[in-house]
């Protein structure tokens, strides 16, 4: 049985709750064991790196040290931001001895030791490479016919690290969706930035970036956008009325996490997957088909 140490991240405790719910439901169905890292802390995200580089790396490294203490060799996270920050921290500690010594020094102060024995992996990587598409195919109970997916990877899933997919035109989510019986459309903006936290600080710019992504998905004939990261999902899913009003073009399109789509195909109840938490679920064409009475029908 596959077993990993799990780093949830702050997002999934609040606005990204559905990400956690659907990941746990799907992972359980696939028979993978996740053990949450005890007393984990915020990875620091992009905001921390803007204030103090050393503290940002040390903060992320604390999680790595905690996982090592629990005897982990592989840890995984569903959030692309956390994945990047934890991985970046690991790379910098190992590549720059000066950084490594300082980080190790501050961790020692808190009674922790960093040895570098744990590998940071993205949840998507676990799904497509460790569990494998064949196993996923076997679990499909309701093939997703008529679903045309625009797979949105976001920026930090494949940049700057390319541990598990191509960097310029990644296709793992596409392959995953095809295994679920859905179609995927050609989507050139699949790794273009959604604006991230700029949605809070500079909405006039971030909304324009999201508008471009939504419009392109629609233009390519997609009827669903599938995303990975809680922040991308929040930006794509939550601001559609504002964006439609501002740019006078109907770009509204349902959005969900790839784990939610997997869950639907596995015949899991939409409520367990947290689909009711998505703002675009109310008008989603899949809703009728997958309301509890319709499952498996």
């Amino acid at each position: 049985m596959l077993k990993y140490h799990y780093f949830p991240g702050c997002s999934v405790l609040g606005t990204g709750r559905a990400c956690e719910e659907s990941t746990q439901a799907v992972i359980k169905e696939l028979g993978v064991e996740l053990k949450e890292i005890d007393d984990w802390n915020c990875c620091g995200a992009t905001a921390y790196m803007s204030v103090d580089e050393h503290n940002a790396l040390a903060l992320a490294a604390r999680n790595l040290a905690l996982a090592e203490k629990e005897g982990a060799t592989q840890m995984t996270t569903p959030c692309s931001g956390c994945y990047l920050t934890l991985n970046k921290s690991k790379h910098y500690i190992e590549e720059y001895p000066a950084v490594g010594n300082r980080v190790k020094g501050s961790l020692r102060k808190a009674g922790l030791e960093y040895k570098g024995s744990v590998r940071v992996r993205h949840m998507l990587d676990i799904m497509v490479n460790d569990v494998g598409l064949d196993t996923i195919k076997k679990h499909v109970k309701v093939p997703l016919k008529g679903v045309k997916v625009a797979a949105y990877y976001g920026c930090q899933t494949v940049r700057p690290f390319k541990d598990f997919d191509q960097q310029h035109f990644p296709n793992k989510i596409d392959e995953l969706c095809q295994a679920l019986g859905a179609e995927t459309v050609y989507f050139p903006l699949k790794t273009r930035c959604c604006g991230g936290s700029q949605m809070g600080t500079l909405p006039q710019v971030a909304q324009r970036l999201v508008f471009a992504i939504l419009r392109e998905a629609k233009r390519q004939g997609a009827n669903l956008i599938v995303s990975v990261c809680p922040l991308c999902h929040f930006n794509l899913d939550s601001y559609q009325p504002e964006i439609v009003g501002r740019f006078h073009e109907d770009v509204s399109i349902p959005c969900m996490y790839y784990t939610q789509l997997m869950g639907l195909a596995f015949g899991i109840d939409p409520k367990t997957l947290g689909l009711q938490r998505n703002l675009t679920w109310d008008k989603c064409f899949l809703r009728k088909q997958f309301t509890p009475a319709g499952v498996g029908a």
Partner: protein
Amino acid sequence: MPLFSLEKKGTILSKGGPPDIMDVTTRHIKYQADCDPSFPAAIKKIPGCEKLDSCIQCGTCSGVCPLSIYMDMTPRRVMNLVRYGFKKEVMASNTIWLCSSCYACTVECPREIKVTDIMYALKQMAIKERAYPRRFAMVVLANEFYKMVRARGRVNEIHLVTRLNLLTNPLKMLSMARLGIELIRRGRFSLRPESVRDPRRIREIMEYTENGNGKEARSKC
């Protein structure tokens, strides 16, 4: 229309309006001696920024940047200004604040310069030296995030966004009412302050370098 209240004060060539051609005494250009060579030196010391000098000014970073069209200086230009020491100009541009860390430039750079890391280094420097307008949203967000993690070890997004709006533009809360109600209705509006078991452990880690520890380790390497 300017994006920020931050105006193009520091641009090098023009000061707005056509130059007075008979004004032969005012210098409109900058000499190399006016530049600050300690600026690129400080940046290059930061991990990830050491390859700055190998930039060939090809402009790939600006081409792939999804935000460069909103910037007053493109990333390519910032790279060149940094390495020749135009500190004031770089610090006054909105480029470093628009960067949303998508790493497209870092991945595409043919000289393997980690442009995103240089942007981070510039942000850190600007925050340390308070070289940003008052109540500037990006800095407020970064600082509030920093404080929250320092105090609790974890972040609650709702608290963070509320603090951001209160400190920058309280009226903006009104425009976010729809979203707030939706989030409450869907159980995503969590007000519970998240925390690690003992936040003091987090502070210990941070104070280690703030008190000047670990510097010897740095100079040794």
